[in-house]
């Protein structure tokens, strides 16, 4: 499993067909088995899905993009509901699940980015300024489109 240093991007290859990985991402029962929260419905385009954690907190996400067995994008609503029903702000992020077929099975890339167009450039910027404060990378100018 590779982790991209400059943002929340994770990748894993599974020795199964994309359709199987897709089912694990979109079927409520299967998703609930690995996500760490139980999900109240299958993920289909336009649905608002509630994730409930074992501590009683919950959060909702909108299913924004569905391209069967290829691409799934959900957008977290920017708050969490405590076990006692109080709302806490959370960053507004999108999670993108990209599925690609290769000779080993299915390569799944998961990215969770800020809910802004330049999500990846933003996380690059955060990493660069903190990690390399005295270095001179060619500049963030070229970050757009470089991925």
């Amino acid at each position, binding site marked *: 499993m590779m982790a991209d240093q400059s943002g929340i991007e994770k990748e894993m290859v599974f020795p199964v067909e994309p359709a199987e990985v897709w089912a694990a991402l979109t079927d409520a029962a299967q998703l609930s088995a690995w*996500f760490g929260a139980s999900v109240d419905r299958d993920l289909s385009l336009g649905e608002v899905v509630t994730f409930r954690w074992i501590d009683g907190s919950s959060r909702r996400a909108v299913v924004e993009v569905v391209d069967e067995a290829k691409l799934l994008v959900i957008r977290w609503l920017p708050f969490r509901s405590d076990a006692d029903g109080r709302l806490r702000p959370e*960053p507004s992020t999108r999670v993108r699940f990209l599925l690609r077929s290769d000779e080993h099975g299915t390569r799944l890339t*998961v990215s969770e980015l800020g809910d*802004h167009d330049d999500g990846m450039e933003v996380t690059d910027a955060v990493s660069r300024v*903190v990690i390399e404060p005295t270095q001179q*990378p060619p500049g963030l100018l070229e970050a757009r489109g470089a991925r």
Partner: protein
Amino acid sequence: MTHHSVDQLFSALSDSTRRQVMQFLSERGGASASELADQMPVSRQAIVKHLSALKAAGLVAAEREGRHTRYRLTPAPLGDAMSWMADVGAEWDARLEALQGLLKRRSKGER
């Protein structure tokens, strides 16, 4: 730092000019709005607006030096954002391990 501030920070950095300003300030230690405007193909007025947004997100501080104002990076919110990203990254690591386990069990015919 609350998660709301992470949102504000991401929003502040979602503009490429503001990212350039951050990069410039991190390299030079500090600059005036005019110095920044000299470096970039935007007006001084635009730079001042961008600096305001960065200031609102806690990323720059302004200091008066006589008749000029110098801006410097206050990178603490970036550290908080990095922590948030590390936390979320760790969550995804755990989830993918669990997904791997689930798919393995299913392909072996178990549930």
